[in-house]
């Protein structure tokens, strides 16, 4: 929102030594954020009115002219490209040292004395867009100022009366301060902040007129707590005076005609949106009602809107004339022919206006204000001001009806009482009750203080849901007292060890472990493309789907981190031969129950946190091993012993014979697998990919792993090696499991070679294992060890069909 300093000055005189920037800072620190301070005059520094004395062709350039320009103190030679420069014309001249926007585009550029194609040039004759003037149609040429009275050399800002300062207020910060959405409200606030006197706002009361009858009925007083209207006749629709145009323009509002400008002016001054109907179109009856099914209206923006029965309308008893608080209808607006008008000044329910404008996708200055909840008292002042102005601007205009005021729901005054000590306890301050009283009184609160207790009545312009409870009043005191004046402390707590989230700790450990094996952590979306899921053979129905994503290419919530990681592998394959990534995030399983929802007995979908790694490298066609290596390192660091068992029901995208479930005890905690090569190719993967995924929630629910301590063995160990041939499909995991149970003296088993090829029959493999035997109380005798290894050998031969190699 744009606020004009000149406009503010009509209501508040700030201290002379307060700079505009200081004022902006003060507002930002106590009220709302001022994003920019734009001093129109500063942007026109070193710009003057010039009078062209002569125009000559440029000797070296067809498109340029050499002008002699009277700039007041001297006559300067300026080279100009504009085709409309003629002798005697008044123009805007940017002298050296000024900053212009070349052709109205890009950054500001400083004007310097220069030579253009050999001819010296001491400035620039400007087009309006180059010096920040509003552009009118067909205005891409040099701006013609011949209409101005100002003589050559007059500072341009002065000549154009561009000496206002514009404060740009951040829009969102006004959310709870509708009272500031007009200049008077802002002035009232500034008066408090700078302890300056506020000029009270007292438009003339409206004389009761004759000639026209208006009847207003409000069918839904909840949605329209107050509706005021008055008719005027003898209106001459025409141009507004320059001062009014400038006021509007300073706030970024285009001047249209005097009637529309008056409504806009009042809105910008008071924050109360107004509307002017052509009385001859409207007739004498106004019915405020909800839309009928299938009712339509064409609004001032010339678009036709389909209405629904939740939308409030202003009708003439039959047809819609306006969408209440949002926009007027095309037909009922003020035109050049209008002579009689009805001013509407009403208060509409913020919720209703917001719903309607959201549904229609139609936002206006009016709806932006109404949806923030306005003070119904404004209706009357605004109407008075509008009539006063209209009478002033259109000399024949007079009030032609009674002032209608349908005010069925006047709000009750809001009174809050509290103790000063409560305020100080909340703020951590020692503000005396007297100071609190003073601050609140300045803000317009009526205050009664009894010892420590303050009883305050909220002023109507703040009782718009903004200030309702004691906490709101505390904020008022705090922000005016100044947050900078609160001396920081640290809260004191009894010592209690905080609850520790095991899943988070596991994720932390897993991350560290995976980084240590060279993996890079990626953050990827919780959303996945349907194409990716389909390429992997995953069912779309199993995935939760976003109802309304703006980024429509990824509507599904991930059930596993694998699909998006695979996509990322594809992206990275362009730049890297090897990709080793991991991610730890939540996934979404709609069929499983998760946490409570706060109300009702329903539960959220389960959202377990996963840790997932992928590995792929050019030329590596068994990336399974690297995936398993990552998994193994992670599990070791997390302290879990696990087993891999090929799944009987692998996912469709898993390599059917290079996949396994990860088991701890009897619990499946995840999988490690290669991606099915055909699906990988279909997805766009250049190389094979190995991947694992572990559900950290499941891991966290397992008993915490403990190290099993055994006394340190002092007696030497004996090692025996066995090399044997078994069928290819005999699982090493099973061999190890079984062998472990054979001998209590067997302390370590290590597989140190796997061989296939010459000397080993096709379909078989040769395993070489080292067995380490040890006793805690003695050195084992060779014979004893031989007996033990013999047992191992027998088991291998009998149970696994092993043939010993010699």
């Amino acid at each position, binding site marked *: 929102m744009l606020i004009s300093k000149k406009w503010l000055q009509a209501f508040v005189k700030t201290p002379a030594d307060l700079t505009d920037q200081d004022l902006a800072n003060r507002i930002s620190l106590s009220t709302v*954020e001022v994003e920019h301070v734009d001093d129109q005059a500063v942007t026109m520094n070193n710009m003057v009115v010039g009078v062209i004395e002569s125009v000559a062709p440029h000797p070296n350039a067809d498109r340029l002219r050499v002008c002699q320009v009277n700039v007041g103190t001297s006559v300067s030679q300026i080279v100009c490209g504009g085709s409309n420069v003629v002798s005697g014309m008044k123009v805007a001249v940017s002298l050296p040292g000024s900053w212009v926007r070349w052709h109205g585009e890009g950054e500001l550029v400083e004007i310097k004395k220069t030579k253009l194609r050999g001819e010296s040039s001491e400035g620039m004759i400007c087009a309006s867009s180059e010096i920040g003037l509003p552009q009118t149609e067909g205005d891409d040429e040099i701006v013609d100022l011949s209409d101005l009275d100002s003589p050559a050399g007059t500072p341009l800002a002065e000549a154009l009366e561009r000496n206002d300062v514009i404060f740009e207020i951040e829009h969102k910060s006004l959310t709870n301060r509708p009272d500031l959405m007009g200049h008077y409200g802002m002035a009232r606030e500034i008066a408090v902040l700078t302890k300056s006197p506020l000029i009270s706002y007292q438009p003339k009361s409206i004389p009761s007129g004759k000639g026209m009858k208006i009847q207003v009925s409000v069918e839904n007083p909840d949605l329209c707590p107050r509706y005021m209207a008055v008719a005027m006749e003898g209106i001459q629709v025409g141009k507004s005076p320059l001062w009014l145009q400038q006021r509007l323009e300073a706030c970024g509002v285009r001047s249209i005609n005097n009637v529309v400008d008056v409504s806009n002016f009042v809105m910008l001054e008071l924050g109360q949106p107004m509307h002017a109907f052509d009385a001859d179109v409207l007739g004498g009856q106004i019915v405020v009602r909800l839309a009928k099914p299938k009712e339509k209206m064409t609004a001032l923006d010339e678009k036709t809107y389909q209405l629904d029965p939740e939308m409030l309308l202003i009708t003439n008893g039959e047809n819609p004339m306006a969408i209440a608080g949002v926009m007027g209808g095309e037909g009922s607006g003020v035109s050049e022919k209008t002579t009689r008008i009805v001013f509407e000044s009403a208060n509409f329910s913020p919720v209703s206006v917001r719903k309607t404008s959201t549904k229609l996708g139609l936002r206006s200055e009016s709806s932006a204000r109404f949806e*923030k909840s306005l003070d119904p008292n404004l209706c009357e002042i605004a109407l008075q001001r509008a009539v006063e102005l209209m009478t002033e601007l259109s000399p024949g205009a007079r009030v032609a009806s009674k002032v209608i005021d349908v005010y069925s729901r006047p709000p009750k005054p809001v009174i809050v009482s509290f103790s000063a000590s409560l305020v100080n306890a909340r703020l951590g301050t020692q503000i005396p009750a007297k100071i609190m009283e003073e601050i609140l009184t300045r803000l317009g609160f009526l205050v009664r203080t009894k010892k420590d207790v303050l009883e305050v009545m909220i002023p109507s312009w703040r009782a718009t849901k903004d200030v309702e409870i004691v906490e709101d009043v505390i904020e008022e005191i705090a922000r005016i007292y100044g947050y900078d004046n609160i001396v*920081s402390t*640290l809260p004191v707590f009894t010592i209690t060890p*905080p*609850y520790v989230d095991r899943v988070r700790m596991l994720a932390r450990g897993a991350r560290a472990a995976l980084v240590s094996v060279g993996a*890079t952590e990626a*953050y990827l979306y919780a959303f996945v493309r349907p194409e990716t899921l389909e390429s992997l053979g995953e069912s779309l129905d199993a995935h939760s789907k*976003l109802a309304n994503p703006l980024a429509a290419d990824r509507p599904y919530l991930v059930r596993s981190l694998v699909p998006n990681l695979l996509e990322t592998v594809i992206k990275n394959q362009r730049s890297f031969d090897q990709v080793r990534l991991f991610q730890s995030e939540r996934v979404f399983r709609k069929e499983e129950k998760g946490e409570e929802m706060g109300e009702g007995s329903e539960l959220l979908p389960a959202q377990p946190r996963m840790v997932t790694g992928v590995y792929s490298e050019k030329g590596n066609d068994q990336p399974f091993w690297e995936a398993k290596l990552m998994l193994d390192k992670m599990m070791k660091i997390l302290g879990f012993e696990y087993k891999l068992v090929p799944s009987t029901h692998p996912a469709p995208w898993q390599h059917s014979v290079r996949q396994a479930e990860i088991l701890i005890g009897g619990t499946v905690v995840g999988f490690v697998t290669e991606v099915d090569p055909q699906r990988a190719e279909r997805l766009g993967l250049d190389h094979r990919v190995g991947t694992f995924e572990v559900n950290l929630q499941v891991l966290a629910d397992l008993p915490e792993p403990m190290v099993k301590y055994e006394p340190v063995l002092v007696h030497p160990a004996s090692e025996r090696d066995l090399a044997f041939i078994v069928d290819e499909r005999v699982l090493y995991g099973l061999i190890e499991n079984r062998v472990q149970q054979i001998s209590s003296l067997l302390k370590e088993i290590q597989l140190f070679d796997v061989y296939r090829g010459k000397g080993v029959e096709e379909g078989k493999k040769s395993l070489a294992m080292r067995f380490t035997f040890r006793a805690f109380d003695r050195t084992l005798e060779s014979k004893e060890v031989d007996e033990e290894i013999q047992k191992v050998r027998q088991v291998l031969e009998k149970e696994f069909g092993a043939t010993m190699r010699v």
Partner: protein
Amino acid sequence: MKKQLDELQEAFAKQVEKITDREELERLKTEFLGRKGKLKDLMQQMAGLADEERKLIGKRANEVKEAIEQSFSEIENRLSASEREGAMEREWIDVTQPVLGAVGKGSLHPVTQVQQDLEDLFSSMGFVIADGPELESDFYNFTALNIPPTHPARDMQDTFYIEGQTNVVMRTHTSPVQVRSMRKWGTPLRVVVPGRCFRNEATDVRHEHTFHQLEGLVVDKGISMADMKGVLETVAQHLYGKDTRVRLRPKFYPFVEPGVNGEVTCFLCKGEGCRLCKKTGWLEVFGAGMVHPNVLREGGIDPDVYSGFAFGFGLTRLVMLKYGIDDIRHLESGDLRFLKQF
């Protein structure tokens, strides 16, 4: 005999000077001291001498022998020292050469790094580090936070909804964990919640529908705004150094009252004003405020007895500020060219 001994010593002296390696040394040792060596030879000849003379010559012979042995041992020492040196020298390696076949550099995502750093800070101050669902109930995400269905604040947050479910949303902030935590742990409460949040908006250089926040909540008897300022200062100084100051400005959030925006002195220009802080000297980092009584009530906490403050900030924003990252989309891209730098 004596003369022969003298000659032998002289001959030895001549030859010994030429010794440069161990091989020659051994040869000379054999030649002079060996079982069939020159000295032994002379000593055998002594047997035929008279006692008196034999004594004298014997003494002299011993002197020569000792001198030769002494000489050999010196040479030996000298030789082995230089040999050791040579041997070590042959073990030279290029210490600057990279380790071949070493594990490549992995790295944590920059947001994880900043998050873990802050988790440690808050843990050290006794805060619980909590987590909460990302697919959250509408109740916890909005209603419990004093944002009823008709509240305009719902406009400020464009929300992802789920097809076929009216009461769940992708959480738009980490704040839903405020009420969850109050209900779970009651008072006194110190908790921070780092986590991923979602806003339904189109992505560009500055906008990303997925981002990371850290939320904090402190509730107890007598908790004040001064306490909040103190905690925010602690965080700011941890992040940006001891001299960092915090400035509060009013800002509306439905779930706090009073609500503020916390700005910190720009770490780049130390508050002087630069491009990063848009010449203001301040960087907007925190949203904060005293917990709204309605929110405390939803958390089962009596606002007449307890008070608290809440704060939040964007981890994504902190990371971007810290490293000067200009395009927010890098953070969720999984692009190794980006990630490997951290």
